[in-house]
């Protein structure tokens, strides 16, 4: 999100889900859309059937691959080079939108001077993609008016994640494919309410609506509303917290709905960090691996046991009603937080959720008109929605970017931090599958999903499998410099040679024992998408 905020001024999906139906071209890079956002993936399939074209950039042969006009199976971690190569072609062939670049953007000169080095031949050497295919993709994207860029964690979960996002944004601005229906840069958020959590300021540097904690005027507004003095310093990211905990500088941690014991890279070190805390509180709906380590566990109500709103990937805030009362001693998250706050000496007196929403309306310009009363009457409202007359915003940056002019932020290609060598000779990339969600705390309790995907597996190309002597469903051991897991081999050409794929759903073979704890310097997102491993067949 940091990359889009820097280039466009707003860190969210620019367009809307129904826009997919009318698009003429999709450039999907780093999104296994049918597996992770199946109802968006199915819109892509339907649009392709109606004549839209798909450019897919993904090392794996995912379900969308047979629908692609061009499938670029680039080397993992070479997204910036690939995108620069595409922009190189667009500029050198004069296919960019000169009017848009002049009127709506700044920094084109800087972009041109960086991408001119990335000729198709240069990029071919880096990415493994044939120069001709890069040219073809560039022409196709640049010359199709309704062209949407779609990405997900394949772009962000790299030490160069912010650079990857900026490069996507550069490409959209260069061609003027932004600020119009069925165009834009469309990050598909990985969780049903991660957009909402970010919108509400569950980030170290902002209050709700991305209002900076370092801005004195903003701080004053919140200080007045809450009657307290507020810290003007940017807080710690999760990664900073883990490091501080390990060093003994952080004493207490309060974790809500997150399972870092499985979701953070290099689990061995996460465990050391959490064990080093004086006090760990975990608020969750199930006793997760992290909750098992907690001094206090606060049982939270599930989605079916509480009222509230979720903000989905297209910035749509939707009302959700409870179906049953919370079971056992579970309570809605907001009630737990209010109670903890009261006991800590700051009473929060909200009678119900709509009162909290009222406060959000008052303090958050982009949510100004998103009231419970209005949400009751319609299937959600898309921010920005500044007042109660406003219908919501299906696509962003219409006549000008949220920050005024869009800024080209050219990036140089940087290789993966850990590349395969003689000993660790394969590249592990991680992700999710259709049937399970994240660390499996919820989906692995569902019988039918567990039946569909019961066991941890590692996808390996037949060439590598043959070389190592691995057959289908063999138990294999995967080892990185940080740890080792055992899983079943799925021998499949879905992954290219020299690449293996695993998921972080399975606690019995937790893939993040292996992953590399290196981070994007800005977003602090870990490089889940590439680390070096070796594999052997278990006797």
């Amino acid at each position: 999100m940091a990359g889009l905020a820097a280039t466009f001024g707003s860190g969210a999906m620019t367009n809307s889900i129904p826009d997919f139906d009318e698009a003429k071209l999709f450039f999907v890079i780093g999104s296994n859309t049918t597996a992770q956002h199946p109802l968006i993936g199915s819109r892509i399939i339907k649009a392709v059937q109606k004549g839209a074209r798909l450019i897919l950039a993904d090392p794996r042969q995912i379900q969308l691959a047979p629908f692609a006009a061009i499938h670029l199976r680039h080397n993992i971690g070479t997204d910036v080079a690939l995108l620069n190569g595409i922009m190189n072609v667009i500029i050198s062939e004069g296919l960019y939108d000169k009017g848009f670049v002049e009127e709506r953007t700044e920094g084109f000169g800087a972009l041109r001077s960086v991408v001119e080095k990335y000729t198709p031949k240069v990029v071919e050497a880096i990415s493994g993609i044939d120069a001709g295919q890069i040219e073809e993709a560039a022409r196709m994207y640049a010359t199709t008016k309704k062209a949407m860029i779609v990405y997900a964690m394949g772009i962000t979960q790299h030490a160069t994640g912010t650079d990857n996002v900026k490069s996507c944004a550069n490409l959209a601005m260069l061609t003027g494919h932004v600020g119009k229906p069925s165009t834009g840069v469309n990050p598909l958020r990985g969780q049903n309410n991660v957009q909402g959590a970010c919108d509400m300021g569950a980030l170290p540097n902002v209050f709700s609506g991305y209002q900076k904690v370092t801005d004195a005027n903003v701080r004053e507004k919140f200080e007045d509303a809450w009657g307290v003095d507020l810290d003007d310093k940017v807080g710690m990211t999760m990664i900073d917290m883990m490091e501080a905990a390990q060093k003994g500088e952080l004493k207490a941690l309060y974790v809500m709905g997150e399972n870092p014991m499985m979701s953070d890279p290099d689990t061995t070190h996460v465990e050391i960090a959490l064990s080093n805390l004086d006090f760990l509180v975990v608020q969750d709906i199930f006793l997760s691996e992290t909750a098992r380590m907690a001094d206090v566990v606060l049982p939270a109500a599930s989605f079916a046991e509480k009222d509230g709103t979720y903000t989905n990937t297209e910035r749509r805030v939707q009302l959700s009603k409870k179906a049953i009362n919370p079971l056992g001693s579970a309570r809605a998250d907001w009630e737990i937080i209010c109670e903890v706050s009261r006991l800590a000496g700051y009473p929060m007196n909200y009678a119900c959720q709509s009162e909290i929403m009222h406060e959000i309306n008052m303090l958050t310009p982009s949510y100004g008109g998103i009231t419970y009363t209005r949400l009751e009457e319609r299937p959600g409202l898309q921010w920005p929605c500044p007042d109660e007359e406003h219908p919501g915003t299906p696509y962003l940056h219409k006549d000008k970017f949220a920050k005024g002019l869009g800024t080209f932020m050219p990036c140089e290609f940087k290789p993966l931090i850990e590349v395969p060598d003689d000993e660790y000779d394969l590249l592990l990339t991680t992700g999710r599958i259709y049937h399970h969600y994240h660390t499996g705390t919820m989906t692995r309790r569902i019988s039918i999903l567990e039946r569909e995907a019961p066991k941890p597996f590692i996808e390996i190309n037949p060439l590598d499998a043959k070389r190592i002597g691995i057959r289908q469903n063999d138990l294999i051991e995967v080892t990185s410099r940080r740890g080792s897991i055992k899983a079943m081999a799925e021998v499949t050409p879905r992954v290219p040679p020299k690449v293996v794929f695993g998921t972080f759903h399975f606690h019995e073979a937790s893939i993040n024992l292996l992953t590399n704890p290196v981070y994007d310097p800005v977003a602090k997102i870990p490089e889940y998408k590439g680390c070096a491993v070796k594999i052997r067949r278990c006797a």
Partner: protein
Amino acid sequence: MKSIDKKDVLAALKTWATKYHVLCPVNKTNGDCIFDCLGEDKVTLDYGKPSLAPKSALFPQSEIIFEVKDDQYHEVISSQNTILFGIRACDMMGILQSSSFMARDNSDVYYRAKADVTIKVVMACKGPQNETCFCTTTDSGPFATDGFDLQFFDMGERFLVEIGSKKGKELVSGDLFIDVKDEEVKEGIAAFKEKAAQSIPRVNEIEKVAGMMKNGAIDDEKWEEFGKKCIACGGCVFVCPTCTCFNVYDLAMGDSGVRIRGWDTCLYGGFTREASMHNPRPTQGLRLKRRYEHKLKDYNEKDLLGGLFTCVGCGRCSDVCPVGIGILDVAKAIIEDYK
């Protein structure tokens, strides 16, 4: 034959609700209409084809069938006296066929317990409820010919009510229902039926594809083409009036626990995967093929009960499929390809 003024129907439902659990068409937010409990104000007589078949009344999405508690275990067979009001003829045929299927070999006690105490009130269709209705192709509508306890015909200001059983007769014995002589309305009903049947176009592709399946004329490659689009959501199965596959699983909670059966689908890989990990239906294309064969080719004649296939022509799979491979789309694509 009886008749009832439209304005009196809600009152009749409320009267029935004193003795029965009444499920009827109810408008939900965002324009959905489903069969749900009789509520205060959202009951509607102006509805098309509710998006879900009413099968969950007899075959719930999930139900406890077995309970372990205090070192004892016992079977749980749940049922309650229910009136299913306003189901369509296609759904009536779905219930007839499913009831027959569930009674074969060992009778399914959980299904039977509910089927025995459920009264079916059919709302005959005046015409197609949307563009995917094709019951005239499958001989399962637009009006019911068997199985119903009551059948309503919309005659404008009032409904004519056909009595199909003793239970049905008891339901319409109250003051709200007025006696009409069969001869007086005979022509009106006949005209209604004829007009309705003519207004629902026959879909020849369905019959042709059924014939091709019987002759093994459809290549697996064609099915793989559909399979590569399928996102395995199972939507087509869950809305289908005649899909009754289930999975059984246990939920343990300390010393107690329950055994639950819940809807399943043959479109999921694990449905046919064997313990060795071998899967006789290894691809999504072959799983789709299997499902459509069950609808148009592989069924027991005894279960048809007047219908032509175990597809009852409701078209819901074509309504819900996010990638356009419901039965109508598949049939048309196959015929197009094999022209």
